[in-house]
Each structure stands twice: as structure tokens, then as C-alpha cells.
């Protein structure tokens, strides 16, 4: 009798699991992305998966969604051994996925995107009608309001994400995987998303949330699994753990979640901008009269949701884009257009720029690391002993030094820029721009795509530069980063600065409201 009891309990335990992975391994060439991973996700819970970039989270979920097939291991869905060779089988098993980069057709309507691939019949009309009805129900039930006839490209990022969730629900997904869902959202949009997820959980759906933001894990998940270098290192009940423990599990050593810094000692005003106005090629006003000033030895943080004019502001200051208005450096007016305007002249005047998009503007990915560390400074006399010859050995020697000081891994100056991880690519760009001791450093998204270790290092470097007396303009969509590093915070919305706050007198909620355009 007792035996049957135990057997029965095990039976229920197994059928309580929405997903069970046993011994999943996957290698890409010589890189072992997943090593013998086992995980149990209980039905009707929100299960977080955290880990640094490259820890193998996305690979694991791609295997679960049939994007890749595992080299070894078994997948159980609702207690049943399931083969998932392609996305269609995953969808049929009730698994839906919301990718980090949405898989939507931009110039299709919401309805068309929702039914794509799950149409009821050869003709579209009946499917569209059914989807319209279902969307109405879901909107009522889960706060998933989207205009079904709007084109996706006209929707905000938060609404586009809802379309992805609706797509999964239309396919009757019971298990929803979200890959880094809040990276592109405002704080209030993220809160809305979490309300939706909690609503879905109450309806018995299972949610797997992949993220690197520990605060989200603590807020919404029931259980959390930690991955490190392709391995599953621990699973915890969220209520019984804390961010510090999770961070240590992720990195494998003690980490500082807070940036250590002394109060800033701001000096004289270095950079001043007034009335910057930019109209882009589509006639849209991107900057509507932005004024700011930065003093020596302080970090001015620009917070805001991506696309509210921060990029244009950086470009104007760096000499990449012409604008109305005026910029002064140490009281001297800088040219805003014409022959003397441009990134080269700005650099010579002491304004260094770490671009937001390092792949497009910061690096030439197909070039070696040593070539990349010279860009923008390749006219320097010490690299050009004569007009006819560039001293590549000198550049390489310089690069080796930079790589050592900035802890670039691997320290190989002959490696192509594309061969480094995101964090190390960023260190290469930072080393190039910071080691000139610029008067002003413009830096956009300094830690995008970096792992905890690299973020910690980069933050420390920025603080050090500030303490040496450089004026730093920091643009970041990561509010935590802005709060941790800035000595003053300006919030941008729709091409305007909504207000300035001191970091110790404000909080994420207040800044979030400003970021959403509410004063």
C-alpha cells in the first residue's frame, strides 16, 4: 500500500511538469553551448532562466522550440517524451516562443501576423474573422489590447511584443517562452508585461522567462534556474534566494552589484549645447531644442527609451550629423556644419565617441583587432613616421598594451573584431577612445551585450575616467546603469529633455514616468 502511494506521488509529480529536459547537449563546432542540461519546469508557474551572455540560455530554448536539434538528451512535454525536430512540432506540442528580436512581418497587419502559418484554410477570410474574435477575447482577459488592423511597423515596441504573445496564444500554446522580453521596454511597459504574464499563469499557462535582469526574476518568477558556460548550475525557489546569490551563481565568483564610486568633484563647465534641433530625412523632428551642459569630472546620464532622440544627440555632439543650435567646448563655439565640421575635427578637439552601435559604427568586424584600435587616430604622428608609410608594428604594440590594460580576452591583436564576444568588442572600442584622455567622452550603451564581468569592468573604467577629470555623457537604455553611474540624470522623450534629476533624489518609478513623457 505504502509502495503504491509513493508510486502514485511520483506519478503526479511527473504529470505536474510542463517541461522536463534530460541531459541536453549541443555543440556548435568546437563550442559546447549546452552540456548535459536537465531542468524541470512545473505546470502553471513562471520559471526564470538566468545566465550571462553566452551561457547557453537561448540555445537551450531554441532546442526546445525546434530551431536546433540537440546532439543528445530527451525532451518531455507534459510528461510525454516528445521529439521536436522543427518549430512546427514545438507549436503542435503547445510551446510558443517570443523571441528577443521579434519575428513579425512589419508591413502586415496585426491580424495577418497572428494567423501567418496557422491559417484555418486556403482562403484567408474565415481565419481573419476567427482571429479577430479571439483577439477581442484575449484583450479583455489579459490586457492584451492591440488594434488588429494596425500595421506592425506603426506599433510601439511594447505593442509589437503583445502581437508576439497573441501569436503564441492563437496557436493555443500552453507553454510560453520569452527570451529577454524587457530589453526594449519602458519600465511601465515591462510592468504591464508582467501583469499579462501573471494573468496567463492564473489561467494555468506555464511561462519560461529568460533574462539577465535579476530584479525581474525576483519580482515575477516562482522558480529560477541559473546557467553558466553551457551548464545548469542550480535551480532555486525564488522566495528562498536573493539577487546576490544568483549573481554569484551566474558568474561563479563574488560580484559587486553596485558600482563603487566616490562623490563627483565637478570642475569647470566643459561642454555646453543649446537649442539643438534635428530634422531627419523623412522630415521627422528628432531633436526639438535640446540644451545641456557637462562639467569636468562628472557623468551626465541620459535616460530614455531607445528612439527618443538620444542617438541623434550623440551624433550631433560627435560631429556625425548637422543640426541647428550651437555647441561650445570650453567656451569656444564649435562648427555645426561645413568643412570644419566632422568627427575627425571633433576628435582633435578632444571629444571622443563610443558609438551606440559598435557593429555598425564602432568597429569594422572583418578587420583585425589592431586595425580597429587605430581607427580615427590612424593619422597620429607616432603611427606615421613618414607620409608614405604607416608603422603597423607601432599600432600593434599599442594594441597589445590596450588589450592588457582593458583585460580584452583573448589578448590577440591578430584576431578579427568579429571573433570577440560582445563585452570584449566593447572593451576594444572603449580602450581606443578612453586612452586618449579626452576632455569629453560621449558614450552610448556602453554595456549592451556585455556579461556581468565585463559590465563591472567597464563601469569601473568610466568612473576612473571621470575621476581623472573627463566630462562624460552617458546614454543608456538601461535605467539601472544610468542610476548607478550618473552624477546627474537627464531624461529624454520625443526629442526633448523632460527634466533633470539627481540620482540620490529620484528613483526608477519617477524616471520611468518621465521616460514615458509624463511630467
Amino acid at each position, binding site marked *: 500500500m505504502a509502495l503504491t502511494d509513493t508510486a502514485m506521488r511520483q506519478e503526479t509529480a511527473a504529470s505536474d511538469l510542463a517541461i522536463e529536459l534530460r541531459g541536453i547537449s549541443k555543440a556548435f563546432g568546437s563550442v559546447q553551448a549546452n552540456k548535459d542540461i536537465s531542468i524541470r519546469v512545473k505546470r502553471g508557474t513562471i520559471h526564470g532562466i538566468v545566465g550571462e551572455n553566452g551561457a547557453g540560455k537561448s540555445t537551450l530554448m531554441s532546442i526546445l522550440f525546434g530551431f536546433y536539434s540537440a546532439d543528445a538528451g530527451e525532451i518531455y512535454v507534459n510528461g510525454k517524451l516528445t521529439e521536436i525536430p*522543427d518549430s512546427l512540432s514545438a507549436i503542435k506540442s503547445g510551446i510558443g516562443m517570443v523571441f528577443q528580436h521579434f*519575428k513579425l*512581418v512589419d508591413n502586415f497587419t496585426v491580424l495577418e501576423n497572428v494567423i501567418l502559418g496557422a*491559417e484555418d484554410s486556403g*482562403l*484567408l477570410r474565415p481565419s481573419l474573422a476567427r482571429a479577430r474574435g479571439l483577439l477581442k477575447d484575449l484583450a479583455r482577459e489579459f490586457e492584451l489590447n492591440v488594434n488588429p488592423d494596425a500595421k506592425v511597423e506603426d506599433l510601439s515596441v511594447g505593442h509589437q511584443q503583445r502581437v508576439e504573445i497573441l501569436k503564441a496564444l492563437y496557436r493555443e500554446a500552453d507553454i510560453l517562452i520569452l527570451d529577454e522580453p524587457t530589453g526594449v521596454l519602458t519600465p511601465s511597459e515591462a510592468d504591464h508585461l508582467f501583469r499579462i504574464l501573471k494573468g496567463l499563469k492564473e489561467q494555468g499557462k506555464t511561462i519560461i522567462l529568460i533574462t539577465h535582469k535579476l530584479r525581474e526574476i525576483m519580482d515575477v518568477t516562482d522558480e529560477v534556474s541559473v546557467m553558466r558556460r553551457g551548464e545548469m548550475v542550480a535551480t532555486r525557489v525564488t522566495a528562498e534566494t536573493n539577487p546576490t546569490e544568483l549573481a554569484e551563481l551566474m558568474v561563479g565568483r563574488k560580484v559587486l552589484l553596485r558600482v563603487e564610486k566616490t562623490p563627483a568633484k565637478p570642475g569647470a563647465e566643459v561642454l555646453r549645447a543649446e537649442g539643438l534641433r534635428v530634422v531627419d530625412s523623412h522630415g521627422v523632428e528628432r531633436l526639438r531644442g535640446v540644451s545641456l551642459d557637462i562639467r569636468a569630472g562628472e557623468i551626465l546620464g541620459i535616460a530614455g527609451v531607445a528612439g527618443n532622440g538620444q542617438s541623434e544627440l550623440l551624433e550631433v555632439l560627435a560631429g556625425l550629423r548637422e543640426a541647428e543650435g550651437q555647441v561650445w567646448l570650453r567656451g569656444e563655439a564649435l562648427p555645426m556644419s561645413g568643412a570644419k565640421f566632422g568627427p575627425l575635427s571633433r576628435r582633435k578637439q578632444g571629444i571622443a565617441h563610443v558609438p551606440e552601435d559598435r557593429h555598425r559604427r564602432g568597429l569594422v568586424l572583418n578587420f583585425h583587432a589592431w586595425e580597429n584600435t587605430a581607427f580615427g587616430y590612424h593619422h597620429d604622428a607616432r603611427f606615421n613616421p613618414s607620409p608614405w608609410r604607416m608603422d603597423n608594428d607601432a599600432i600593434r604594440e599599442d594594441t597589445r598594451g590596450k588589450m592588457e590594460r582593458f583585460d580584452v580576452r583573448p589578448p590577440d591583436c591578430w584576431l578579427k573584431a568579429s571573433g570577440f564576444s560582445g563585452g570584449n568588442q566593447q572593451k576594444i572600442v572603449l580602450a581606443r577612445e578612453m586612452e586618449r584622455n579626452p576632455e569629453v567622452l560621449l558614450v552610448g550603451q556602453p554595456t549592451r551585450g556585455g556579461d556581468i564581468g565585463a559590465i563591472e569592468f567597464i563601469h569601473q573604467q568610466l568612473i576612473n575616467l571621470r575621476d581623472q577629470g573627463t566630462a562624460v555623457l552617458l546614454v543608456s537604455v538601461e535605467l539601472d546603469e544610468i542610476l548607478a553611474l550618473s552624477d546627474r540624470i537627464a531624461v529624454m522623450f520625443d526629442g526633448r529633455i523632460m527634466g533633470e534629476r539627481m540620482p540620490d533624489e529620484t528613483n526608477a518609478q519617477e524616471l520611468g514616468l518621465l521616460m514615458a513623457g509624463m511630467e
Partner: protein
Amino acid sequence: MDIATIVQVIDSTLRLATPLLFACLAGLISERAGVFDIGLEGKMLIAAFTAAAIAYVSANVWIGVGAAVLASMVLSLVHGVASITFRGNQLIAGVAINFLAAGITVVIAQNWFQLGGRTPSLTGDARMARLQLPFADAVRDVPVLGPVYSGILSGHGLLVYVAFLCVPLTWYMLFRTRLGLRMRAVGENPAAVDTAGISVVGLRYIGVAIGGVLCGLAGAYLATGLSAGFVQEMTAGRGFIALAAMIFAKWRPWHAMGAVLLFGFLEAVANRFQNIEILGVGVPVQAMQALPYVLTVVILAGFVGKAIPPRAVGTPYVKEH
């Protein structure tokens, strides 16, 4: 200018626009599915040759048309294998097809018929018959209706009607059916289709294959309807004009019809008025015949406003990590 001339010009506009319309829709469907098709010209050419040769040998135009469609589809398959399966450069694959067709048609024609790279002239059942629409004779003398119905609409080869019927069919397929939705999606964002669990490769092959069928019909009409036999390079750049019309139409079927009618009209005018005088100055016939090509250049140079192609066209789909 009398009514009879106008009727004549419009009548010939329809016929001259027919191969352009087939080719234009072929390109449109292929590019909507995300595959550049610069090989329209080559596919038309091989279809024209095949249609003429097989129609002559079999003395049946429809066997010729069927063979033309097959020949064109073989080249489409080559294009598909190169640019979809092996993810090669779609432009280069298309250019290769054009060269291949230009060479192979003449070589085979010379070897087969010994007529200096042409096929014998088609006569009788080997040519496409002109259909008289019902009551065409009865209403011939009715004012307005007579010239329009009997003079312009009636009296074309079957493929002319098929071509214009293909316009609503293409529109319906693209915008009202599941296949169309998926094909448009694969031309805009193949990743969306892939994650929905549908084969990107399969859809693109379907698009290219439909293009092959339509190019086959274009070439077949050119050799058996518009002319009576195949001559070297007889497509004379119509594949590229069709591409220009497709861009002009911004990849929309009804607009494509309008665009090819414009090109057909220019060609018809050039054919009809070979020695025209404007303000007492004689315009050389070459200048008239160059009109469609000049318009092509103008369109491709972007003088007709911004044409945004399907976003994924020309890019082989590779699953990202």
C-alpha cells in the same frame, strides 16, 4: 488621326503588352517571395525557341506552348537550386541564365534547322489562332461598342486573354489566400515564416516555379502569337522592360497591368508611325523604337517616386544563431 488607326494601335497594344504582362507577373511573384528574378529575359527566350521548334515539329501550337513552359521551368529550377538551396547570389544566377539562354537557343536552332539560328516560319495549326469572341461580327458596325468589342477586344490569341486573366488571379492569390500571405511574408521577413514552422525554402521554390510557368507563356506567345517563329535574341530586352514595369508598379498586380500597357502602347505607336514628322522635322524610326527602352531607363533611374521592394528580396535565408 481616324478611329480606325486608334483602334489598330490599341489592338496591337494589347498584343504587345501580353508577353510583358506574363513576364512582369512572373517577376512580381518571384520577388514577392524574396527571390530576385533578373533571368526573366533568358527564360522567355528559351521558351520562345522551344515553343517555335516544338510547334513546328508537332504542327500543333499547344504542344509547343506546353514544351515552352517546361523549358522555362527547367531554367527556373536552375535558378532556384543556385539561389535558394545553395544560397548563391540571386542576381548572378539570373545573369547566368540570360547568357545561357542567349547562347543555347541559337546553337540548338542552328544545329537542328540549319537556318542560321532561327526556326522555320510557323504556319497553320503551328501558329496561335486568333479567337473571335461571340457576336463579334454581329456588333461590328454598332458605334462605340463595335470598335471596342470587335476591333480591340476580339481577335487575339488565347494567351492574350489568359495574360489579362492572370492579373486578378495573381492579386487574389497574393492577398486573399493562405499561399499568398505566406509568400508575401517570406519576401518580407523569412524568419517570421520559419518560426511559424513553415518551410522558407519550399515557399520560395513555389514562387520561382510560378514565375517559370508565366515566363514560359510569355515566350510561347512571343514566338507563336506575336511572331511566326523564333529568331535570335527575339525577346529584345522584354524581360528587362518587364522588370522595369514591375518596379514602376511597385510590385502590385493591377498596377503592373497599367505599366505594361504603357510600354505596349509605346511599342505599338513606334510600329505604327514609323515615319512621323513633328513640326516639319522627320523623326527617325530608330528614335521611335527606342521609346520603351528610354522609359525603362527613366523608371529604373527612380524618376517615378520611391519604390520599396519586398524587404528580404535578394537575401538568401540563413537561420541565425
